[in-house]
């Protein structure tokens, strides 16, 4: 399609407008983290020119960035010291993603390739576990976790996040496996390979794109999950979404600190997606079979 100059300009303009619309809230959130408290709510809002300060970050992470004299925040001290919470979030998101993906790939492959009685019902049952709203499960879960001693532990939160992700991951991965021609499995079966060898050596490498995409979704879910972390943890650990809410106190909301933590929390998720992203390219199956 050949576009005229005007059309091209219009298209570029529209594209940029959409990007701006999406990026602006994030930008504004980031500016909050480096504004002075008194300027956060100034009317009209100061979008581009304002006095900057690293105070929010220094408080949240208990470090001295050394921009301002006389503000001595001790490492590890301060009311809002949040570095360990960021660490909690990373551990939980990474571990629950790995756990969900490992189990879900195996389940999805089996569902995609093997036939058994009542398979449709089984797939529906997997999906149905996500139909109940999490709020309805949270309280019973609390008691179950208390009795099993999982309350306030990494294992507990990792487990529930992995469980929450599993149904969607299984169904998503199943559709990726379904796209891989089953003749490849059959050829390998005749060649003498075992099911597990076929899965590990042939099918898995072809499904990396789908696995990466699913992993991103699982990671983001765990990274942003609020309800279960709130109910199933006490003092031992907390993830970023939950501790963010502690900035809202009876004596006021620490907007600057909340924005600083939020901004910092974007980074690990961003890095994870960046790492996985190169695998998102599909097309590894190209050339194995003619369509």
């Amino acid at each position, binding site marked *: 399609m050949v576009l005229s100059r005007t059309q091209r300009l219009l298209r570029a303009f529209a594209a940029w407008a959409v990007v701006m619309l999406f990026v602006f809230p994030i930008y504004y959130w980031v500016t909050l983290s480096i504004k002075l408290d008194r300027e956060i709510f100034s009317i009209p809002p100061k979008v581009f020119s304002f006095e900057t300060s690293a105070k929010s970050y220094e408080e949240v992470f208990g470090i001295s960035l050394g921009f301002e004299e006389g503000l001595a925040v001790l490492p590890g001290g301060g009311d809002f010291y949040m570095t360990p919470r960021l660490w909690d979030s990373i551990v939980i998101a990474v571990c629950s993603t790995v756990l969900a993906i490992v189990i879900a790939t195996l389940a999805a492959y089996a569902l995609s390739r093997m036939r058994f009685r009542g398979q449709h019902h089984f797939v529906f049952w997997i999906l149905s576990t996500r139909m109940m709203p999490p709020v309805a499960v949270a309280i019973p879960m609390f008691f179950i976790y208390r009795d099993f001693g999982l309350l306030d532990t990494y294992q507990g939160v990792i487990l529930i996040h992995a469980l929450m992700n599993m149904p969607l991951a299984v169904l998503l991965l199943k559709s990726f496996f379904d796209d891989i*021609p089953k*003749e*490849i499995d*059959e*050829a*390998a*079966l*005749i*060649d*003498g*390979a*075992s099911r597990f*060898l076929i899965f590990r050596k*042939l099918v898995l*490498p*072809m499904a990396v794109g789908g696995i990466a995409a699913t992993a991103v979704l699982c990671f983001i879910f765990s990274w942003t999950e609020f309800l279960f972390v709130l109910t199933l943890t006490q003092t031992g650990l907390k993830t970023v979404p939950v501790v963010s809410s502690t900035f809202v106190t009876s004596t006021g909301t620490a907007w600057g600190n909340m924005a600083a933590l939020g901004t910092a929390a974007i980074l690990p998720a961003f890095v994870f997606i960046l790492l996985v992203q190169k695998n998102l390219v599909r097309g*590894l*199956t*190209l*050339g*194995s*079979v*003619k*369509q």
Partner: protein
Amino acid sequence: MASVEYENVGKSFGAVRVMADISFTISDQKFVVLLGPSGCGKTTLLRMTAGLETIVEGEIRIGGERMNEVHPRNRDIAMVFQNYALYPTLKVYDNIAFSLQVRGHSKDEIKQQVAWAAELLNLTPYLGRYPKELSGGQRQRVAMGRALVRHPQVFLFDEPLSNLDAKLRGQMRYEIRRLHDRLQTTTIYVTHDQIEAMTMADEIVVMRDGNIEQLGTPEEIYDRPANCFVADFIGSPSINFLHGEVQGDGGAPVFRAAGMTLPLPQHSAAAPGQAVICGVRPVDLSVSADGPVKAEVILVESTGAESHLLLSLDGHEIRAVSQGRVKARPGEVCGLSIDPATLHFFDAASERRID
């Protein structure tokens, strides 16, 4: 190398019955083609032979041994799939070597076998490539190489050439057949292309709707088709059918249709008054100005070497193939001569051959 025997084999997918009571034997070292239109059950039969579909009804024996309960890897067969099913994440070398690797052969032996297969298939320069970096014909060869290295008892091919262009298909046809002549491995080859069947097979099994319609050498099937379906399926352009009746005519019975009278073969089983179908192949009709049967020319197509004519014979459309160029123009009337020895007669009700 081994024979393959099918005994009363049937297959249903749920309530859908796709095959019933298939029995035939493929003797050792034969190249047998399963031929039939799409959906007739060829692939299913092949997959049952390979062990990819269960055999619930009947029995399949390879080399005299019952295969029903034997795992695919222990049947000592190799299969080439219609879509090749190459392993996309492995290089050509590893694709071919895979079966030997998983069976734990020594590195040296694998190397030697792969080199042998690659040489045979002209794949040596491509061993380091991935399947996606190959052309259709080369992928097809890799699929064959994967089958060859194991020296199986039986080769199974499922329409291996259907994804290639016409010219390559002709060449591969010849190469596969030559490979068989060299290796002498029993081969079951599935296709819907009658040319492939006619040119490659020692024996053809013609199938329709999960039944065997006829089994025989290409010549037998061409010269003495068992029924209208087989007659129609084999040969291009297709055979002409004329519906008519056998009449006594005083002495010898004759066939009368479309304003013609044709003699029946001597000792024909056709009885006077019987409704019959007469099949005559386009190549058996000779077109000439002075032929006894007059037909109007509708269309003339030239392939270069021969001319295909579409004619109207008393209102019925029939086809004729003539060597060389034909001068006739549409609308003209030309003469046809028919050699009674080339006619095929079928009962109109059962569509079975009448001898």
